[in-house]
């Protein structure tokens, strides 16, 4: 069949990312942050939850490189543990969004007619609500917690995946190899899975990276607003929210969680750019997908 093997796509992507300096930078940072998050309990110098009031608001020092917070907790340890929430939100929310959005898009594009218009209207509706408001509304119904925040972020990310899957289905459903599969009696499910989906993976992988960056930012924003991870669990957004109330006493409190957050998001964005260059050669140099956020 005409579908390229997924292994060659993967090889292509890896080659293109290794070719660009920003690609190497972002993969290194992402691997480093993932390692820190996974190994947090063994790497972090202190327990992120243990309070010690005499050590309140200590400036950065050798004992506490990032300083301490209003309860005397070690901020370096809290930042390291905070990566767990950001990264797991990215992974869980993007997986949920792919699992929800891609089948929707495939069905809309492949079956057309009523299925298509119902699904497209539904996506229009999701897109009509600004991302953070949609997430806030979902959390308002479900209650504030990190699990509900992940779900809300996933819902926000669904339309982009569905639209991509739909567009690539529309582009392919009348190609000869799809017709051929239909002629020899393949089921719709088989055709979608074996002839249409493999060709859609390129743009979907780029979108997964873009959505991961969006998920990290959105989770941090929800936690910052008090609608995501609840204290005392360390999340970068929630730490910055407490840090904001103590800026006059502790500048470091408002600084380090933000650096971690920005580093993670910027690496995901750069990775998305180099992946985009890999699947679309016109897209070389410092260009980026316009309007891919919303």
């Amino acid at each position, binding site marked *: 069949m005409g579908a390229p093997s997924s292994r060659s796509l993967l090889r292509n992507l890896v080659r293109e990312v290794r070719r660009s300096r920003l690609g190497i930078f972002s993969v290194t940072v992402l691997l480093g942050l993932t390692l820190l998050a996974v190994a947090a309990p063994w790497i972090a110098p202190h327990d992120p939850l243990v309070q010690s009031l005499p050590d309140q608001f200590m400036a950065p020092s050798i004992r506490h490189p990032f300083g301490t917070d209003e309860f005397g907790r070690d901020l370096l340890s809290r930042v390291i543990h905070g990566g767990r929430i950001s990264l797991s939100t990215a992974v869980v929310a993007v997986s949920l969004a792919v699992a929800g959005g891609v089948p929707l898009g495939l069905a809309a594009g492949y079956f057309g007619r009523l299925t298509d218009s119902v699904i497209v209207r539904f996506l229009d509706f999701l897109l009509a609500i*600004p991302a953070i408001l949609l997430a806030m509304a979902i*959390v308002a119904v479900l209650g504030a917690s990190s699990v509900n925040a992940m779900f809300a972020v996933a819902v926000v990310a669904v339309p982009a995946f569905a639209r991509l899957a739909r567009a690539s289905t529309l582009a392919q459903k009348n190609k000869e190899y799809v017709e051929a599969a239909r002629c020899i009696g393949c089921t719709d499910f088989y055709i979608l899975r074996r002839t249409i989906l493999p060709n859609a993976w390129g743009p979907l992988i780029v979108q997964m990276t873009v959505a991961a960056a969006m998920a990290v930012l959105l989770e941090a924003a929800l936690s910052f607003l008090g609608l995501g991870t609840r204290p005392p669990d360390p999340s970068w957004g929630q730490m910055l929210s407490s840090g904001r109330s103590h800026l006059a006493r502790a500048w470091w409190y408002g*600084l380090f969680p933000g650096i971690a957050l920005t580093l993670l998001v910027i690496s995901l964005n750069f990775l998305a750019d180099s992946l985009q260059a890999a699947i679309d050669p016109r897209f070389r140099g410092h260009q980026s997908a316009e309007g891919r*956020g919303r």
Partner: protein
Amino acid sequence: MRRYILSRVMQLIPVLLLTSVAVFMLIRLIPGDPAHIIAGAEATPEQLEAARSQLGLDQPLPVQYVIWLGRVLRGDLGKSVISDLPVTTIIAQKLPVTVELTIAALLFSLMLATPLGILSAVRPGSWVASGTFWWNALAMAVPTFWLGILLMLFFGLQLKVLPTSGYVPFFSDPLKALRFLVLPALTLGAHVSAVLARFLRSALLDTLHQDYVRTARAKGLVERQVVLGHVLKNALIPVVTMLGLQFGAFMGGAVITEALFDYPGMGRMMLQAILTRDYTLIQGTILFVVSAFVLINLVTDIVYAFLDPRIRY
């Protein structure tokens, strides 16, 4: 043209209907008795009974929806659970504050994005171009609330030149109001400035290679005249319409910026409504914001089709 506008308007109706159903279902999806939710936790039995009959809870769900939609269409969004003021009154109070902030942020992002976008397109490889590249990358990755915190640390606490929170209405004391407006506007505008600079740059790069630009150069125009007279004018069409699409980004950013700077606009009001479980206020605001967003997108699309006659969807 007329047919295009008509078909775009027709597309809006299902979106608005779906939004209204979702907003209507909001308080009915929350576990518990909707009357309790509407009347508040310490409601007397009489108040509960009043809330029940107002919601029409003894009727079947579709009937409740029609009653509710009828009220909304007549401009009655209900009363806030907390303050007991009509939701429309609250929105009318808070909207100008956010509009003020948004206009300031928009002006800032345009002032920054226009020169950056033009210079980085006209002089690829220059230090301006690479500076713009890094500004864009940073401004897109830095979370709004952290940028705001950094600005507070620097301008508010280190240099002590600007206030870090509060609000003064623009028309009561413009100078003082501007001082309170600067940091929130920078915070809110930074992300959009990066989106615009990127977009302007790629629009310019597209236009720079058009035939009529080569003609303009061939007839001996100075490069400045080519860029400002021929290229920019055409490149601005998609950029201007792009601005309309940034409304959602502004509205979302306003929630965070206003929470950060204690700015008494729509965004902070909505956050407080969610934190205090003021569900009628949440319903009304979401409905209002989505309708505004959808209308602005409609106007943007129509303006775009009007400016560029090749566009037909």
